[in-house]
């Protein structure tokens, strides 16, 4: 009897997580879809003019902004993360892995506003002085996001790499391959699906990040033409304008949320499918 109660209780708790996800999705769609229908999907995502108080709802600059920032983050964070993963998996002495891995995972626990703060205080002035421009830029957001996605990339791809059977490695070494050849020809190949999944999840995280990006990206409503140009992302747009939006303007922000929701759902599904591919 008591068992049953606990079981049911836990089930309700578990379902409530799922339920809130469904409610959020439902809410965003109910609030956002009518505007997309009214403006037309094409005009909404392909028009460059965003003046919601005057009836223009084009979010193309924001979509491109999100893509640009995410791409840069993937280049920085993905490259650095995979290099770090290789080092931790194969070349680092064991005692250092025991210290380094938890430290890297700790990066995930730092609030994003702290990253943003570091960006404003250190990175933005540095970019302004070194490369010119306002400093608040695609580049700044890309670098900050790149650091923020490091723990996702490293934790998941390191697990994937460590899950490759030792026998693969020894089989390759026994054929006269060097450690490096073995790593990239055999171990990386065997762990490929997990590594790709880590990059896609990291991408999802980069697309969704808001606070740190608002603080360093400059938030100008322009299609970015250079890495040094300021940019506004989809998430920044919602966060910046939600405070004073009303009527169609507010619904347009929810519609922006719909677009984000779809992008992230697609990314996560791809990540799940690639991970499942691994037998």
């Amino acid at each position, binding site marked *: 009897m008591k068992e049953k109660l606990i079981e049911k209780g836990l089930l309700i708790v578990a379902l409530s997580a799922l339920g809130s996800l469904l409610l959020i999705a439902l809410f965003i769609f109910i609030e956002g879809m009518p505007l997309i229908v009214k403006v037309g999907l094409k005009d909404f995502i392909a028009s460059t003019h965003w003046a919601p108080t005057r009836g223009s709802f084009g979010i193309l600059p924001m979509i491109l902004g999100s893509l640009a920032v995410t791409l840069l983050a993937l280049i920085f964070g993905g490259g650095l993360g995979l290099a770090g993963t290789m080092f931790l998996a194969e070349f680092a002495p064991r005692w250092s892995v025991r210290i380094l891995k938890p430290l890297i995972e700790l990066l995930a626990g730092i609030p994003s506003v702290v990253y943003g703060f570091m960006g404003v205080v250190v990175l933005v002035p540095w970019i302004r002085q070194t490369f010119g421009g306002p400093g608040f830029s695609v580049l700044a957001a890309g670098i900050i996001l790149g650091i923020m996605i490091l723990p996702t990339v490293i934790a998941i791809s390191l697990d994937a790499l460590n899950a490759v059977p030792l*026998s693969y490695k020894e089989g390759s070494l*026994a*054929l*006269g*391959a060097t450690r490096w*050849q073995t790593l990239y020809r*055999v171990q990386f*190949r*065997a762990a490929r699906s997990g590594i790709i999944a880590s990059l896609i999840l990291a991408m999802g995280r980069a697309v969704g990040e808001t606070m740190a990006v608002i603080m360093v990206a400059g938030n100008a409503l322009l299609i970015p033409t250079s890495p040094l140009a300021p940019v506004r992302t989809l998430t920044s747009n919602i966060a910046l304008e939600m405070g004073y939006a009303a009527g169609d303007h507010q619904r347009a922000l929810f519609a922006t949320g719909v677009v984000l929701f779809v992008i992230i759902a697609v990314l996560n599904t791809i990540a799940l499918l690639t991970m499942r591919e691994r037998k």
Partner: protein
Amino acid sequence: MPEKISARGLNVAVHGSPVLRDISLSVMANEILAIIGPAHSGKTTFLRCINRLIENQPGFVRTGELLLDNRDVRQWDIDTLRRRVGMIFATPIPLPGTIFDNVAYGPRLKGVRNMRRLAEIVEKSLRAAFLWDEVKDRLFSSALRLSGGQQQRLCIARTLAVEPEVVMMDEPCSGLDPISTAQIEQAMRELKQSYTFILVTNNVKQAARVSDRTAFFLSGELVELGPTAQIFTAPRDKRTDDYVSGRIG
């Protein structure tokens, strides 16, 4: 016949506990030397010392001499050493990729890029391992779809493609059915002309069937080494007699 590999007073300990004690033995060129003995008698460790895979294991200490062509294995460049001394493992482990990729792996590492040259090597190696006829129509399908016996012959082909001088086999037939085992043994007998074999096996009868000489390891010591016929019919040591006749181990 010249000595291909010789151990003199070889001792190995892992984290302070001895695994091999004072091993002295020679492997002659173009012979099949079988190493038999119960589990944990150091057979595999001996092989892993020769191609230095054991160096990946932390806490390992080796003393004494272990020579390939009269030069200590530690003085060889490690990649050269491993190309000259190939190893087949107990569990066949095709690398991820196609059958062709598996066999071409070693040659590609050596820098062979020419597709026609690679195809020649792949065919020659697969023929030598008696696998060609079974896979010639599906060289570009996944190696993981082969049966266990085919996978093990694929691993042999992969090793031969590197053109080693010595082939070490660590219980190559432990997971295989009798027909696959017979095919692998036949391959060994044919290949003996051009290679030197060290065969570690738990299967005493297999040692008797294919090897020229047999060494008996027990608890990290070499108990007896002699012509296979003598080891199986007139062993000098009582422990060897007990083992080959099935009373211990």
